[in-house]
């Protein structure tokens, strides 16, 4: 059942991104979509509404960039729980470290290994 919801919720989040680009001004670029999604995910997560979506849809909620924001926000909040104020500084990136490092390393290697196409 989680496979079904992964498809539906993941697809629906992408539809929101598509509508943001199509129905607002032409200056709403993919970069704006990604930035909006990561911040929106962090805010929705902070007020406690994102975890239920993750429980329902699994990858449908964690794979879109809102899930990245969720990971950062929960990391910062759990950091505060464990280490106090310093945790707000260390928790977010600690939680997202695997994704960030994978993106930098694989991105760098891909940029080296492949030739740009025209």
């Amino acid at each position, binding site marked *: 059942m989680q496979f079904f919801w992964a498809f539906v919720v993941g697809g629906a989040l992408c539809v929101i991104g598509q509508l943001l680009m199509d129905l607002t001004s032409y200056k709403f670029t993919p970069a704006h979509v990604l930035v909006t999604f990561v911040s929106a995910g*962090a805010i929705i997560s902070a007020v406690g509404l994102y975890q239920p979506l993750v429980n329902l849809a699994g990858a449908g909620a964690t794979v879109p960039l809102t899930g990245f924001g969720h990971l950062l926000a929960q990391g910062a909040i759990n950091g505060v729980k464990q280490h106090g104020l310093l945790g707000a500084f260390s928790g977010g*990136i600690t939680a997202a470290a695997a994704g960030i490092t994978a993106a930098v390393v694989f991105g*760098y290697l891909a940029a080296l290994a492949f030739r740009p196409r025209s």
Partner: protein
Amino acid sequence: MPAIKQKQLYYDMVKQSAPKPRVWRNTFWAFVVGGLICLVGQFIIVFFRTRGLDVNEAGAATSATLVFLAAFLTGLGVYDEVSRFGGAGGIVPITGFANSMVAPALEYRAEGMVFGVGARLFNIAGPVLVWGIVTAWVAGILYYFFR
């Protein structure tokens, strides 16, 4: 003709001739492509869970796997087709984030390893990290003071 009026006239002309996005078609394909990428992610999560990873570990491993696939497919030039076809369906998932790093880095490789690849990797990922980290930090601070 006064400059302001000319400007207005120009904007009207641009508005008329700019292509109207085919909203329904775009929405449909964004849903299908985005949904499929998340479905693949769900399969990868279940795979890692059966290998004994806990929920958080499986999530992190899945992100890393999807990022690897997206970087590889971007290098091959396949992912650009996914984005062209699926619009936001190829942008919103973490694969789109990886694509936004590799594509400019690859394109500007001629500018060198530092200002070409090194800097361009963060063309779009930079703003995303800035916004994500600041928002999460604010959430942590608010939690500290108002828990």
